[in-house]
């Protein structure tokens, strides 16, 4: 346990334009340290980018911060992202479909969760009125 905690990287970013890049860079650097291939590095990096943007845009958190913990194991990177925002219900969000999105008047947005889920090996969302926690794992 202690050994694991000692491998943690913690990052707190403010909810400001472009700050998601700082987070995604850490993800990429750690994926490099773990010797993930370039494609997987880019995948982790983009999944975290999307998760950060969701917190920035939707959480309405008062402290305007996203708290991220990176845990490295020899063959996986686990990323836990938290915001202290209003939360949401994953179940109530329909998966986006391009055919529908292309219809006139339909909101084109709504791809972040789908991308995260497609790019990572697992994504677990725990969200309530005190905030949202997302645990994402990418295997080597």
């Amino acid at each position: 346990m202690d050994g694991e905690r000692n491998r943690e990287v913690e990052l707190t970013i403010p909810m400001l334009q472009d700050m998601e890049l700082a987070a995604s860079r850490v993800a990429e650097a750690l994926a490099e340290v773990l010797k993930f291939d370039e494609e997987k590095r880019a995948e982790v990096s983009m999944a975290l980018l999307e998760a950060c943007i969701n917190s920035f845009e939707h959480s309405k958190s008062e402290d305007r911060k996203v708290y991220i913990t990176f845990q490295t194991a020899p063959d996986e990177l686990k990323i836990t992202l938290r915001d202290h925002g209003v939360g949401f219900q994953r179940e109530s969000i329909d998966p986006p479909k391009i055919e529908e999105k292309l219809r006139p008047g339909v909101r084109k947005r709504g791809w972040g969760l789908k991308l995260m889920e497609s790019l990572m090996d697992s994504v677990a969302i725990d969200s309530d009125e005190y905030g949202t926690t997302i645990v994402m794992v990418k295997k080597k």
Partner: protein
Amino acid sequence: MAETFTVNVAQDNGIWIFETHGYINNLAGEAISEKYREAFDQGGRQFLFDLEDSKIINSVGVSILIEILEEIVERNGTMAFCHCVPIVKKTFNIMGITQYASIYETRSEALAAMREN
């Protein structure tokens, strides 16, 4: 990346080429959309996006490309991409954009294919 985003527009035999530079986020999407609107209003129907210098994108930026795609599809136009890094290709695949827009390796490949259209 977080360099100021820019987009250059050129024309090649009726094909409008948009060359983007930098991170395609919400602001970049809007900048692209504005230039697209001008081209469309001048009668443009074939659009090629050269993403060589956009190695990072996000879904908010890409949503604006879907807005553009909607209009292009509706008017029987063509939207295509070239020089996409693997994560961009993968993103377009996941989102299903590749069902409506072709991705080419190089610009000349894209132009050749689009001219046959």
